[in-house]
């Protein structure tokens, strides 16, 4: 009796082990599929031209060289692309976090005429594909005299519907009594937003920050329609030209992938830094 139970227990343990082994191999395979292209990009950026053409998928450069990076720096407008990308991305990110949260707070807490309609419009905008808006955006930018300037590249990206939506939902989750308490303490609406609500909204702000940074850093279509002079080229525009434009002669894999690799670094760093900052900051505010 006890013997047979022991045997069936052992069988169950074995079955569980086999099951988890299968799960892990599946997950591992999936991870490899996702990571592999990135690894190839990084490795290739350290290869020589002939090596990269002959062994495009090998994981060890023969010989390893940083000449592609030197070349990027010397031959191309790479530093200028980085500068433009930084200017645009940082302006967009900081202003977007501020404006999204302001709009989100107004929609979440203030009572004003047309609030429902405003929110409905924002949700509707989220459903429109960005491509549809490219030409109208171009026309408006040109009409406002912002074409081929930083303004034209930055201003249209300053507020995004998804960000407003996220902020509104987050603000609604903050207990009203905390804000009422601040009102009784004598704080103005902006003071409540700035000193009470915004610090409590850190998880949502971090989310918007990452999304905005990543979004504007990787943005391409908007920069194509908003500027044409090479002096305003961003990283995305520059790398796209490396891959397809007049510079696209020959394979030049190491050069293109060196640029791509450098381009991913800021976003990757951002994710690693902020991933730990996302935490529950409302602990202790109210008794649940």
């Amino acid at each position, binding site marked *: 009796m006890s013997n047979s139970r022991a045997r069936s227990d052992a069988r169950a343990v074995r079955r569980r082990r086999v099951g988890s082994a299968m799960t892990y191999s599946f997950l591992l395979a999936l991870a490899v599929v996702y990571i592999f292209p990135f690894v190839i990009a990084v490795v290739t950026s350290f290869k020589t031209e002939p090596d990269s053409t002959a062994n495009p998928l090998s994981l060890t450069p023969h010989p390893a060289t940083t000449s592609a990076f030197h070349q990027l720096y010397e031959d191309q407008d790479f530093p200028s692309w980085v500068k433009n990308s930084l200017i645009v991305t940082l302006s967009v990110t900081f202003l977007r976090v501020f404006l999204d949260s302001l709009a989100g707070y107004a929609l979440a807490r203030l009572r004003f005429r047309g609030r429902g309609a405003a929110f409905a419009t924002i949700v509707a905008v989220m459903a429109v594909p960005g491509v549809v808006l490219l030409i109208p955006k171009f026309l408006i930018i040109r009409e406002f005299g912002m074409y081929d300037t930083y303004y034209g590249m930055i201003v249209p990206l300053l507020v995004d519907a998804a960000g407003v939506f996220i902020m509104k939902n987050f603000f609604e989750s903050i207990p009203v009594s*905390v804000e009422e308490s601040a009102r009784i303490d*004598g704080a103005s609406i902006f003071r409540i937003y700035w000193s009470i609500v915004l610090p409590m909204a850190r998880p949502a702000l971090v989310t918007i920050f990452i999304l905005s940074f990543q979004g504007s850093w990787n943005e391409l279509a908007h920069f194509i329609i908003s500027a044409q002079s090479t002096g305003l080229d961003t990283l995305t525009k520059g790398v796209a030209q490396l891959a397809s434009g007049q510079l696209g002669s020959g394979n030049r894999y190491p050069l293109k992938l060196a640029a791509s690799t450098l381009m991913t670094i800021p976003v990757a760093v951002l994710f690693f830094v902020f991933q730990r900052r996302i935490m529950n*900051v409302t602990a202790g505010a109210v008794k649940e």
Partner: protein
Amino acid sequence: MAGITFDDVTKTYGDGFRAVSDLNLEVQDGEFVVLVGPSGCGKTTALRMIAGLEEISEGQIRIGERVVNNLPPGARDIAMVFQNYALYPHMTVAENIGFALRMRKVPKAEARRRIEETARIIGLLDHLDRKPGQLSGGQRQRVAMGRAIVREPQVFLMDEPLSNLDAKLRVQMRAEISRIQRQLAVTTVYVTHDQIEAMTMGDRVAVMRRGLLQQFEPPQRLYERPANLFVASFIGSPAMNMLEGSLEREGDALMCRIGTATLALPAEVLNARPALAREVGRPIAVGIRPEALDMPGRHDGGDGGRLRGRVQAVEALGPEQLVHVEIDAEPVLVEDVLEGLVNPDEAGDLVELRTDTDGSRATIVGRLDATASLRPDEPIELAVDLRHLHFFDLGSGEAIGA
């Protein structure tokens, strides 16, 4: 310091719901007033109207001499303690307490002094640099109190500040809040649904129901002379036994019949309530507090009435015991009574529970001392203290001759 006056204050919401109707209330300077009632009675709405968090639909609220109807909350010189504490989670205890001072641009040194003094009063001097998340429930509650105290406001408003604490801590904090309030002598309005809190803390207690003020008096008076069936049922634990009865005249004396029992009312009862004479022959509600019942032959001198029944259950409480007795009488199960016992949503369940056995049998509760030996299912005879009976009109629910 200042008093608070409600003049015909009404609150109507957009959907037409009247949360508070024609409320007239005068809170004296330095007084501790408790607003109490079941959920949905309008007590919190009334409090929030004083705070300025809820607009006043009609009427006027004054703090001191000042009409505050259109003043924003920050300009009313009030401080409020919320049920969920509503602390600022990203600020330390000191910053939480000092936030209102910062908003009022109190000089730094002065603010520091007041924060420390407040921390001493609430016993959190060693915790000034902690964040609310690192504090226990009781400590958070103290911070919420501290935030109110540091302001030195004209009025304290408290919205069920103890309902999130466990039972023991609640009793302790009850005494603490009373002590602090007496020490600072600040006019206080305190909202609770717990009648024990109301009775133990308030200088005066305002009982509310469905947006209407039922009675506004000191706790003891509320207990001894409830104005109507609702207040009688709501105040006191265990609740007042409410039985249907009728009055009959026998010569000069007035007899009160409850089921099969007849109680001869002493002359002093009739003298105190001459209006009782007009109720002869009509059904009325008779209220008997649990402590007005006793084992016979102890204090009643043998001349009082008796109620006979069968013991259903005995709850030993240490120094005393509660005995549940089923007697031959009709319980009063009108809404006024039921809502006083439980909140309105559950009133229906209670009717079922009480009438399940038999419509003409009522269960009453007596509070007896621990020496009487009682067993379930045994017959029992209880003496009724006839001088402490309560009489109510069954139709209007009003106390007769109160």
